[in-house]
């Protein structure tokens, strides 16, 4: 296996709130290869954003990293000083945010906002910085860069603004790009364009991408590997093919079944019953059990570990224990696998 560029080991993050300690991320491990795209999938509040913010060193003030390490090119980011983290942030690891309408400073010309990202990480003259900005604008597909350079964010559409945010992220040729639901706030045609742009950029620059989303439809388009998160844990991780066509965790089944496909004609879309648990003093056992129609008595006793399915595929469910009863995935999932087989 190629040496991973980013390796997260047993990361746990908690938040101190008035209501109590929220255990937002609980013992997460994954790695990211060079040029690879890893999708983090899950409902809101499952800890996917917190994981990425820990990587960026941008956790809120009341957050606490309880355990674990985040190795970037072999060095633990959690041990870096503020100053060292600033050089990495934007320089080596860059981030794209969810809402392009609010991600840009409304009172500053966009040229300067991108130039800021360039000059923070490179010693360049004004002229060179501007040349680089124009180059970036072209790369993200914004025409008439020279004129656009002097415009304010409100003079751009949502999709264009997201392109500018991407240009800012790319300013210093980062090794890793973290995209936090970059298409959620956009309409469907824009989504496709931005996804194409990101794929295009990844091909040209060879950066690794962590793609956070709650939308499995988006994942299928971009991801090499997929990690499904629930209640602060990774419950299933594998290549995109494995997670899509041979899912093992009942939560992944639920997610996939609730995703519309061309085959779902007139039947009702499936919805996972219940709501995610609060992560303040979580009860013992598998936190998904109350919403899981396939729950076992074992789920009430302890959280299941990640059982290996293949060399690259793991799932955290007692159903994979050799002693567990044989349970067939729901019909929608089996049909999906069959359709894939017949292709």
């Amino acid at each position: 296996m190629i040496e991973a560029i980013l390796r997260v080991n047993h990361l746990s993050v908690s938040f101190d709130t008035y209501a109590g300690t929220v255990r937002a991320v609980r013992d997460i491990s994954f790695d990211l290869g060079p040029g690879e795209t890893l999708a983090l999938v899950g409902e809101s509040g499952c800890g996917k954003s917190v994981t990425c913010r820990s990587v960026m060193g941008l956790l809120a003030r009341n957050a606490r990293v309880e355990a674990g390490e985040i190795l970037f090119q072999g060095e633990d980011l959690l041990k870096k000083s503020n100053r060292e983290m600033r050089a990495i942030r934007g320089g080596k690891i860059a981030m794209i945010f969810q809402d392009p309408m609010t991600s840009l400073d409304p009172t500053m010309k966009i040229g300067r906002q991108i130039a800021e990202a360039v000059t923070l990480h490179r010693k360049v003259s004004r002229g060179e910085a501007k040349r680089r900005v124009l180059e970036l604008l072209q790369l993200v597909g914004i025409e008439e860069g020279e004129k656009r350079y002097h415009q304010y964010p409100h003079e751009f559409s949502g999709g264009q603004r997201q392109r500018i945010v991407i240009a800012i992220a790319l300013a210093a040729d980062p090794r890793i790009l973290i995209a936090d639901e970059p298409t959620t706030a956009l309409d469907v045609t824009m989504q496709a364009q931005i996804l194409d742009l990101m794929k295009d950029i990844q091909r040209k620059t060879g950066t690794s991408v962590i793609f956070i989303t709650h939308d499995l439809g988006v994942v299928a388009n971009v991801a090499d590997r997929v990690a499904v998160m629930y209640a602060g844990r990774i419950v299933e991780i594998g290549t995109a093919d494995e997670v899509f066509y041979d899912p093992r965790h009942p939560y992944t089944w639920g997610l996939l079944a609730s995703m519309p496909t061309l085959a779902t004609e007139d039947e009702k879309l499936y919805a996972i019953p219940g709501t995610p648990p609060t992560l303040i003093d979580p009860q013992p056992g598998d936190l998904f059990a109350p919403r899981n129609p396939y729950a076992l008595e074992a789920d009430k006793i302890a959280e299941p570990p990640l059982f290996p399915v293949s060399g690259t595929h793991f799932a955290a469910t007692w159903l994979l224990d050799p002693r567990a009863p044989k349970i067939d995935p729901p019909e929608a999932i089996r049909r999906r696998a069959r359709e894939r087989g017949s292709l």
Partner: protein
Amino acid sequence: MSEAKVLIPDSAFVPAASAAAQAEPELPRALSFLEDSWRKLRKNKAAVVTLALLIIITTLAFLAPVLAPFDPNEQHLAHKNLPPKWPGVSLNGLNGTSEFRGRRIDAYALAKVQEDQYYLLGTDEFGRDLLSRCLWGTRISLTIAFIAAVLDLTIGISYGLFSAMKGGRVDNAMQRALEILSGIPSLVLVVLMLLVFQPGIASIILAMVISSWIPMARVVRAEALKTKQMEYVQAARALGASEVKIALGHILPNISGIVIVRAMFSIPSAIFFETFLSFLGVGMRIPNASIGTLLNGGYKVFRLYPYQMFIPAAILCVIMLSFNLFADGLRDVFDPKMKE
């Protein structure tokens, strides 16, 4: 992983009993508006402390007729300008001595005051007891402020609600009128009004209210316009509720939080106006004591007898600070937009 296997008995690998149908957690009893507000307010330490202070000050001030050791207006020229003296305290400043040409002298002995006679806060240039005057003065200042606040509230709510409910041309005209009125600096307006009216408590209140209801009316109108768009108001209208009923029954209760907060802020501003006017010499007329006239009197002699200035100044500061801090606390509770 192997540990886990040990922990879980084989018998646990059966479908869980009614796992999916767990009982809904019992919801806590819904809190009433007041209970909820109080619960939130209690978390703000500054607000609780200042509320207690305000209760104490108000009680003391309104019990002035009972508590004041002397008649506040009784002149006793022989005992004029005596510094504070406390029984059993020998601290300079509280022991009845004052500095005169670099020497400490016993002012009480000099004025031939009886041994057991104590003026806790000293006396003024006419020998009136400052403690009694402070109690009565605070009482008057607070009365003026409370009445002014209530009037602000009434006029502001009526004007704002009416303007918002009528809408269209009426609203437009009413807003223009407000704009013109607010073109006069409020301090100047108040002073002008006071020149026209006969001096006295009523004129002070009237003069203050003339300018201070304007911001209240604006806030009420803005909030009412917002609330008017709400679904439940539309629903009430669809059900045929009258405009008056909608305004008083649906809109007013929903903007009451913000109105309370504003009213709370208008009390200290009324106190400020009263002291300002009295200090200027156009407010309360001597010999009536108010915080403003006490400050004015104290200022005239403060190079020689600074305590006559500092004591009312300190009272004023404590009252103003308490009201502002308490109002801030209330705002955090009622107007979450302002909350960080």
